[in-house]
């Protein structure tokens, strides 16, 4: 419950107490306090207050849905329904992140650098897209010292993901990373619920690049490990999202 509603309930309760006191003691001052606290308490109770952060989050959710709508349209236009590959590229000497969605079934390996444009035929036919985690990566890794592209332990990936997803954008409250023989398994605990069910609205996009949760996670993991990552599956449950990714 937000603070405004707590103040409203407090004032309304106070007005009831003052009214009872007025009944017992018959002192007019209590009745005056009853009126004043009731007036303010009922106003605060009635107004549908929401903090600016809540409204802003709703706005960002709409923008993300719009991004997915555009992606859906683009993927339909190119008739693409394949899993995208997250990989780091060199753009003007800087390291960045892209998703490459294969346009044909058997595409040869990707080039290491971004040639620009949305379709690249350098080493294969791919739709090159900028993932949702792009700006977050620029913000986070821009502040950090360069992450050495060597094998990172699970706890190191967990630390990077926690700082990005829990501290900077507060997408979830905690993260667990487990590496199994087949996949990298990442669990997000208490995530924001705004993007639950997005796969029903934009099935093609979610199949290709993943939901906003897994897309951001895959971007960060790919950037940190300097490896090509493909989202294998994601499961949504009440307070937890399980994302399985493969290094390709």
């Amino acid at each position: 419950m937000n603070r405004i509603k707590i103040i409203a309930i407090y004032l309304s309760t106070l007005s009831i107490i003052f009214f009872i006191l007025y009944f017992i003691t018959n002192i007019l001052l209590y009745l005056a306090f009853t009126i004043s606290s009731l007036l303010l308490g009922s106003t605060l109770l009635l107004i549908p207050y929401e903090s600016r952060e809540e409204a802003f989050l709703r706005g960002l959710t709409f923008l993300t849905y719009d991004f997915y709508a555009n992606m859906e349209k683009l993927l339909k236009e190119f008739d693409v329904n394949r899993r995208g590959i997250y990989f780091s590229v060199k753009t003007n000497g800087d390291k960045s992140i892209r998703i490459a969605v294969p346009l044909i079934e058997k595409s040869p390996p990707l080039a290491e650098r971004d040639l620009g444009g949305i379709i690249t035929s350098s080493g294969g036919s791919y739709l090159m897209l900028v993932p949702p985690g792009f700006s977050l990566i620029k913000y986070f890794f821009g502040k950090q010292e360069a992450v050495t592209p060597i094998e990172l332990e699970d706890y190191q990936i967990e630390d990077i993901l926690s700082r990005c997803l829990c501290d900077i954008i507060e997408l979830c409250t905690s993260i667990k990373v487990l590496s199994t023989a087949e996949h990298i398994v990442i669990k997000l605990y208490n995530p924001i619920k705004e993007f639950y069910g997005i796969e029903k609205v934009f099935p093609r996009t979610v199949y290709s690049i993943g939901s906003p949760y897994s897309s951001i996670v895959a971007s960060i993991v790919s950037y940190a490990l300097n490896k090509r990552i493909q989202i294998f599956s994601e499961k949504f449950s009440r307070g937890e999202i399980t994302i399985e990714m493969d290094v390709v």
Partner: protein
Amino acid sequence: MKLYLYIIVMLILFNTATIMLTYLSEKRIDVYFSIYLLIYLIITEILMPFKRKYRSRVNIIITICLIIFAYIVAKRVMEILS
């Protein structure tokens, strides 16, 4: 935040008005109510964030208060006339 300022200013003015009226030994509750309503209308107009969804709800309270105020005025007029 503007809504917190609204609450603080309203509480300060309500309490100041109560202390002043008590100091003046005012015994009529309708005087208290009228002063509170006046403060409420002015502060709401000045400090309440201008959002349509807020205003529509606040208008309900204002309408109820104005009905009570009209009843008080009518009662006073009747007293004077009789």
